[in-house]
């Protein structure tokens, strides 16, 4: 682990910098701490910072970009014929990398000496056999151009490693010396260190932006790839979902979207009335004792992982619905169904709706209730005609947030809703039966991206397009909900 050693060396230098910087500062003040601008430890940290931070940044950048640069240069030297033979540059380069690793291993194990490994020629030696003997994975015979490239690769990466190590350590030393030279009693060490800390804080907060950027870019990029291979009209407006890894798939999104919306609607039909009534009762009627028991109990439902709900749907709700309702009525004999997933998801969303609505109802000013009571309204009339209308924007926001949850939920639908896409070409009857299995956008993202995946085929890439669609829909709902909630809050606060 040479990188680990470099890091340790830099940290060691930094540590030296800390102590030297500290004592240098004290020395320049003649040992009188009152003469210093900052506390002595700030001078130490200043030296540490200048030693460690620039050199580690260079190290990280080098590690990130050097391999790509080297590979590009090697790939440029490979003869055109070899490239055509192997089909793609990336495949060939991974072959080269494997051969280079195997050579490294052989030298390490002592079966080859370094000079021999450099001058080895595939025509004269059984390279493949000898490399396999080291225990490396060589899938194809190592040909001369590949071997040549591998040897070059080794040389270049060892040179690059050497340059990197020297550069990093030199940078650390330069930083150390620079910091120490600046250290004297009038140097504003605390301000410098605080600027450094503040940059770290800013960097940490930008991770949120980077994550969003990463999500959007990664999906956008692959989605663009997908639309290169598959027309976007057929994706967005196609009514048939039938992926086939041998090609010629129908990848229409509408059946999946229908399944998603159908299941979410069922879930909301369960969650919204129950959640809302529970919130109303808890905030308007319940005494402190019932509230102290019931509120946390309902919130436990929010803390249960979705996999538990999925299992509940699979082993309890699904069989029950089939045996009690679907089979007797002749509506189907699937344990996986829209109803199963919808009901269970509804239960999952109850605490979501209830605790958000609870907050919102509590935020309605008491004076409005008192006014209504004063006019002789009963409690339920007050709630229906005064409190709820006042809280309506907030409640709508809560329902939108719950809807976004329902649309993005994965495990419950994976385990409860089934894998068959709605057959939209079979007429209305085939798609509105709530006791048949129906699949959703999230289920298909999972099924297209797990197992053996080939990131060049539209059947895999479609998952990214689905993911982007999902992201846009949920983002839209969230933003809408936030706007509504925020606007409403401004009214009363």
């Amino acid at each position: 682990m040479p990188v680990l050693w470099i890091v340790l060396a830099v940290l060691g230098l930094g540590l030296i910098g800390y102590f030297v910087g500290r004592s240098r500062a004290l020395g320049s003040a003649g040992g009188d701490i009152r003469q210093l601008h900052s506390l002595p430890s700030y001078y130490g940290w200043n030296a540490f910072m200048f030693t460690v931070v620039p050199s580690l940044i260079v190290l990280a950048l080098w590690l990130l970009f050097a391999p790509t640069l080297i590979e590009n240069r090697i790939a440029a030297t490979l003869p055109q014929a070899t490239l055509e033979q192997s089909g793609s540059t990336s495949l060939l380069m991974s072959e080269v990398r494997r051969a280079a690793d195997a050579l490294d291993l052989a030298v390490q194990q002592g079966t080859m000496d370094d000079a021999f490994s450099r001058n080895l020629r595939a025509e004269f030696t059984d390279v493949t056999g000898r490399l396999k003997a080291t225990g490396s994975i060589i899938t194809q015979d190592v040909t001369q151009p590949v071997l040549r490239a591998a040897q070059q690769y080794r040389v270049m990466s060892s040179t690059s490693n050497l340059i990197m190590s020297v550069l990093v350590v030199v940078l650390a030393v330069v930083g150390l010396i620079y910091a120490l030279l600046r250290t004297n009693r009038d140097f504003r060490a605390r301000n410098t260190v605080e600027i450094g800390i503040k940059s770290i804080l800013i960097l940490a907060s930008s991770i949120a932006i980077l994550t969003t950027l990463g999500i959007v870019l990664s999906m956008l990029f692959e989605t663009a790839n997908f639309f290169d291979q598959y027309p976007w009209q057929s994706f967005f407006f196609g009514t048939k979902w039938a992926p086939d890894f041998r090609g010629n798939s129908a990848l229409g999104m509408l059946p999946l979207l229908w399944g998603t919306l159908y299941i979410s609607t069922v879930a909301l039909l369960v969650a919204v009335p129950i959640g809302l009534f529970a919130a109303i009762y808890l905030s308007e009627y319940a005494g402190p004792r019932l509230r102290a028991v019931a509120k946390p109990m309902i919130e436990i439902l929010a803390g249960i992982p979705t996999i538990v709900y999925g299992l509940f749907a699979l082993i309890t709700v699904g069989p029950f619905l089939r045996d009690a309702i679907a089979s007797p009525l002749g509506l189907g004999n699937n344990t996986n169904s829209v109803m199963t997933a919808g009901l269970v998801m509804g239960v999952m969303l109850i605490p979501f709706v209830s605790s958000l609505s609870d907050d919102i109802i509590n935020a309605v000013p008491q004076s409005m209730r008192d006014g209504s009571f004063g006019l002789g309204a009963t409690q339920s009339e007050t709630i229906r005609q005064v409190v709820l209308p006042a809280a309506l924007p907030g409640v709508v926001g809560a329902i939108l947030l719950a809807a976004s949850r329902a649309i993005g939920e994965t495990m419950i639908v994976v385990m409860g809703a089934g894998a068959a896409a709605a057959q939209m070409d079979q007429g209305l009857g085939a798609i509105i039966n709530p006791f048949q299995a129906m699949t959703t956008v999230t289920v298909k993202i999972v099924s297209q991206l797990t197992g053996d995946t080939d990131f060049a085929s539209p059947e895999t890439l479609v998952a990214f397009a689905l993911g982007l669609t999902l992201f846009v829909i949920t983002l839209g709902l969230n933003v809408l909900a936030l706007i509504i909630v925020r606007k409403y809050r401004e009214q009363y606060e």
Partner: protein
Amino acid sequence: MTDATANSPALPDRKHSGSLMEHTARTRRRNNAEKRFRAYGLAAIGIGLAALIVLLVSILSQGLPAFSQTFVTMKVYLDPAKLDKSGTRDIEQIKKVSTFGYAPLIRAAMQETMTANGIDPEKFGLSEKAAEEMISKEGAAQLRNFVIAHPDQIGQTVEFKFLADSRIDGYFKGRVSMASAKLDSNVSPAQLQLADALKKAGVLKVGFNWGFITNPDASENRPEAAGIGVAIIGSLYMMIIVLCLALPIGVAASIYLEEFAPQNWFTDLIEVNISNLAAVPSIVFGILGLAIFINWAGLPQSAPIVGGLVLTLMTLPTIIISTRASLKSVPPSIRDAALGVGASKMQSVFHHVLPLAMPGILTGTIIGLAQALGETAPLMLIGMVAFVREFPAAPPEGFFDPASALPVQVYNWTQRADPAFTERASGAIIVLLIFLLSMNFLAIILRRRFERRW
């Protein structure tokens, strides 16, 4: 004023005349509406609680049997003629005997045990092979591992505790009955009768299933040997990564946003991003992990490091939101006092505000970790559904080894045909829920113990 109120019912032109003591039809209707409304509210709470109870009871009743397991204790003669033909006790030679070579030993031991306990195998009409099949297929592997670890024991008779086959196990847990055994190609009623006889003789016992917690996953046809050992280690590794990354990054970000950030577009952008990330579906984070960490950065599939990174990004908004709340709850007088005695802004935050906010931050972190522990969907996309039998190495190398995770293991088991795996899946859920419960309990204790009211 009082007089006017007292007199008003007596006014002659009043529409709803009558006494306040006697309810008019309209009042009754309104009161009934009131009662109904209350009943709806109570019913809603009742349904919510009932759902919780049904959920927990169903998982518990399905999963508790996973913690007990039927074992068969037998003395096995480690026959040198079969295990070490050369007689040299050369370990390489011994290793060449595959698990198939060990099956005859178990078969012989089974017959031996039955005779010793006065059970006549003929009476049940079972072949020697059928009797042997009552022991898990894992038994031969267990025997082989023992012999390879202790070659000096060859030629001795050693007592072993074997797992019983999952159907036999299921019989004692009520999952398999005589009637279902008739239809099942994997078990016959005669085997179940023999199992009853063995149980009476004390050869076959039901005991606590430690193997379920410590063993790795097992293949499709030996559910009795499947355990959640690898999954627990994998989840633990990911939690370590999440804790080490999400806590410092989350706290740093919150400090900036709460204490230093100026009111400008950049701060707004960060805030909007954080509140959006909190509501992004978890599966989208899985896509991010697959595209960025695996395909672009080249990190290995199914490794805890990738899972940990993805979960870190998911947990960050939770930690940031709760940290900001607890930073906000530290009264400004603390900051003012620190600034007043000459501390810099940075010093006042790090020396005074942060330590006071720490209990709240830790509570938020634990709740975030609990969420991350139960997360399944993103882990499925980064390859954690793979069948992993090898325990990952100790950290830090172990972070890059393939591993499973508790919730994903549950999902894996639900996808298998044998109903014995459903029992295991529910058992694993119980373990997961116990972890979550203790984490939330810890959070509550922390809050009660250290929370300060200003």
